[in-house]
């Protein structure tokens, strides 16, 4: 069934041909590198950006955000409502020449469900995966899950044999700083194969000569050079001077300059992502404040006051140069479960906020440390700085600790922060994803990014029920109920949904995708 081709020579030869045919290099820069290439190690859009060129899921969302077949050609719910059946694409080969079969799917899903995987939260409802034949698999869910496919768009398929040979059967344990072979080596089925990987410097990918999608997709680009450039000014200088073709993380202040430069253009679009502050409301006493023996964030009035003190319009106008939509909920408008009422933006009212602080027993405020990433979201550090200013007006003295996302995210996952900024995209386009990761308390595969330390059994049960609820009316009502509770409790302070600005050469006119994902294979 499985043949190991004399691949090295063959691939090299094929790559040479591909290049000589008509080479087109696509020089792509972002503000930060993918933290790992292990496909299941981190649930991060940043990493998926690179991975989507190399690996493929069963289904994915294309440049228009529509779900389209990738490694599965069709899928349907079987007569048993708890079972989905996927027909796999025939004649697909991994980059090393191995054939892609049902065994690989079963292996990959189980790997992604494993203890060390960061994606297991997406597969909570999946009980098991079974093989029907080489090109058919069935997934059994815990109760009917009509939305299962939505959760699979970033679940990449790995080669079982390769993983076993290289001892990467388990996903890399990222938060505990583990390293494995898959971190820097890949073997996907995708349109591009990894050529060189220098973390933080550059990653080069070349067209996969045996790609199944040849003839179906433009595949004009033959080589991708992916470069992280941390300094925003340098990134734009490089685009302006023609050293880059595409800058995905455009600093908002440079939009005008770039779009006025001949040969360059900027495409804008709302990202399916909410930017917000998280609060440790659950612990009795917290580490990062200057109040002894109690937790000021445990008081709802304090959280409400902090929420009210922030002027989202000012952040939009000045910090974001207009490129954001202030929000009152963590569910972006593109996502199922969003309602206008819940998105009502908390009124900015310093006096009311001060009054609440006094009521709560903090007339002179308190001191606290805000942990903030400084290279992940649009102007993340500046947003935090602005928050420091706003909270200063109600006496909350904020000590700002900004650091790269690679250090920031594990600390959220390990409950080591009390007040933090985070952004959350919704690849499933369904509110359940937000609730399960951010509101459900830490339990098994749920609550992985919830550092609020709040446990509400009732709400946890409601969130759990969402995966198996087939009555959409009832499901929507539950979502609304949980979101209402969330808004009322103010465990998170929503700030805005960010607008994306992609800067590029006119030649590559790519539409901004809601998930901030670029699929190079579609570029023509």
């Amino acid at each position, binding site marked *: 069934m499985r043949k190991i081709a004399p691949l090295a020579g063959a691939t090299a030869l094929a790559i040479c041909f591909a290049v000589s045919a008509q080479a087109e290099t696509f020089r792509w820069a972002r503000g930060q590198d993918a933290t790992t290439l292990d496909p299941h190690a981190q649930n991060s859009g940043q990493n998926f950006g690179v991975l989507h060129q190399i690996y493929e899921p069963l289904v994915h969302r294309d440049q228009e955000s529509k779900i389209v077949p990738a490694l599965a050609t069709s899928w349907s719910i079987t007569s048993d409502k708890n079972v989905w059946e996927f027909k796999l694409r025939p004649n697909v080969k991994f980059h090393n020449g191995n054939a892609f079969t049902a065994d690989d799917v079963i292996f990959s899903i189980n790997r992604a469900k494993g203890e060390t995987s960061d994606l297991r939260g997406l597969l909570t409802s999946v009980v098991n995966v079974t093989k029907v034949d080489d090109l058919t698999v069935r997934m059994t869910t815990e109760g009917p899950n009509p939305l299962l496919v939505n959760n699979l768009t970033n679940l990449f398929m790995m080669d079982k044999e390769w993983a076993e040979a290289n001892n990467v059967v388990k996903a890399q344990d990222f938060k505990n700083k583990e390293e494995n072979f898959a971190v820097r080596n890949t073997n996907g089925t995708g349109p591009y194969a990894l050529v060189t990987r220098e973390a933080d410097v550059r990653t080069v990918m070349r067209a996969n000569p045996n790609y199944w999608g040849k003839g179906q997709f433009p595949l004009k680009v033959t080589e991708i050079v992916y470069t992280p450039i941390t300094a925003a000014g340098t990134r734009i200088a*490089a685009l302006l001077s023609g*050293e880059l073709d595409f800058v995905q993380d455009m600093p908002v202040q440079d939009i005008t300059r770039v779009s006025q430069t001949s040969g360059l253009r900027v495409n804008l679009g709302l990202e399916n992502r909410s930017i917000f502050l998280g609060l440790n409301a659950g612990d009795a006493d917290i580490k990062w404040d200057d109040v002894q023996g109690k937790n000021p964030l445990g008081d709802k009035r304090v959280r409400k006051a902090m929420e009210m003190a922030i002027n989202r319009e000012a952040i939009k106008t000045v910090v974001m140069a207009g490129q954001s939509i202030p929000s009152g909920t963590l569910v972006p408008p593109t996502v199922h479960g969003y309602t206008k009422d819940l998105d009502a933006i908390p009124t900015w009212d310093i006096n009311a906020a001060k009054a609440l602080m006094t009521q709560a027993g903090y007339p002179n405020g308190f001191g606290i440390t805000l942990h903030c990433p400084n290279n992940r979201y649009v102007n993340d550090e500046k947003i935090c700085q602005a928050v420091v200013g706003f909270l200063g007006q109600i006496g909350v003295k904020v000590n700002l600790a900004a650091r790269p996302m690679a*250090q920031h995210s594990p600390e959220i996952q390990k409950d080591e922060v009390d007040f933090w900024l985070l952004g959350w995209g919704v690849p499933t386009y369904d509110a359940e994803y937000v609730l399960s990761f951010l509101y459900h308390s830490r339990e098994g595969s749920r609550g992985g990014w919830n550092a609020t330390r709040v446990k509400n059994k009732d709400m946890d049960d409601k969130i759990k029920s969402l995966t198996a609820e087939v009555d959409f009316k009832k499901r929507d009502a539950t979502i609304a109920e949980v979101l209402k509770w969330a808004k009322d409790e103010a465990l998170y302070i929503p700030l805005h949904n960010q607008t994306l600005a992609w800067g590029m050469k006119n030649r590559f006119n790519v539409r901004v995708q809601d998930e901030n994902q670029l699929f190079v294979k579609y570029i023509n």
Partner: protein
Amino acid sequence: MIAFLIRRIAQAVLVMLVVGFVAFSMFRFVGDPVSIMVGQEATAADRAAMAERLGIDRPFPVQFARFVGNALNGDFGISYRVGRPVMDLIQERLPATLELALCAAMFALVFGIGAGVYTALHRDGALSHAAMTLSLIGVSLPTFLIGIGLIFLFSVELNWLPSFGRGQVVDVGGWKSGFLTQSGLRSLVLPTITLGLFQMTLIMRLVRSEMLEVLRTDYIKFARARGLHDRAIHYGHALKNTLIPVITLMGIRLGSLVAFAIITETVFQWPGVGFLFVASVQAVDVPMMASYLVLVAAFFVVVNLVVDLAYYRVDPRLRTDHATARS
């Protein structure tokens, strides 16, 4: 000669031991290496295993000896930040830094000596005055401002030269070189100027003042009296004598080129060890910091040793009077 050599080498070894000790103490006493390595959720057994692996359960001198032994074998442990062996990371990044430092040193030497000689011989020329004023500005300008200014002018406004990175590199037996491609060479220009400018101004000022001093000495006066050509005097006698302090200076400055490469690399996103080091300091990556310290020390010590030997060859007086050798 041999006694001198042995003494210098003994001194170099001593320096390395001291630096190694500092690096070791850093690694051993800063933070809790065990919990950093195994993570918070580790069990007591995991911790004990890691303590044994790190050798922390042994007596202190044994630990240090082990550290030195490992270091000599090129094993500096695992980076906290990226979870890979420190040595691998450094090896990947080293060629970028060395190529940049080499170019900057050449740039500084050629232009520094040229300008220094010129300003010494034409003391009151307008060009000399301009050069001297510029050199003072050069000394006062922080390196990162020079870099930003150059990027703004040559990359953004004029679009002449690349603003970041190394361009295309070619792998020559494991050494990734930017010298062999056009984009690699073009990428070198701005960082080289940024890094070399400060050293250039120093060399220029030093050459100028040394030249002036030498030109005032008796033997030059005699040479003139003997009717030697200006040209022969200036380049044959004066410049040659000037070069001794220049060699010393360059020796010391090679070290600072490596240090200032940190800034240049940050401004230009140059993928060298300096860029890596800044990320490590920001992330408090102790093994990375400690091994960078040891490596840079080794580099400095070797350069100093070479300079001393060169000095010894160039200056005949030293061969009779060892005591005045620069320490």
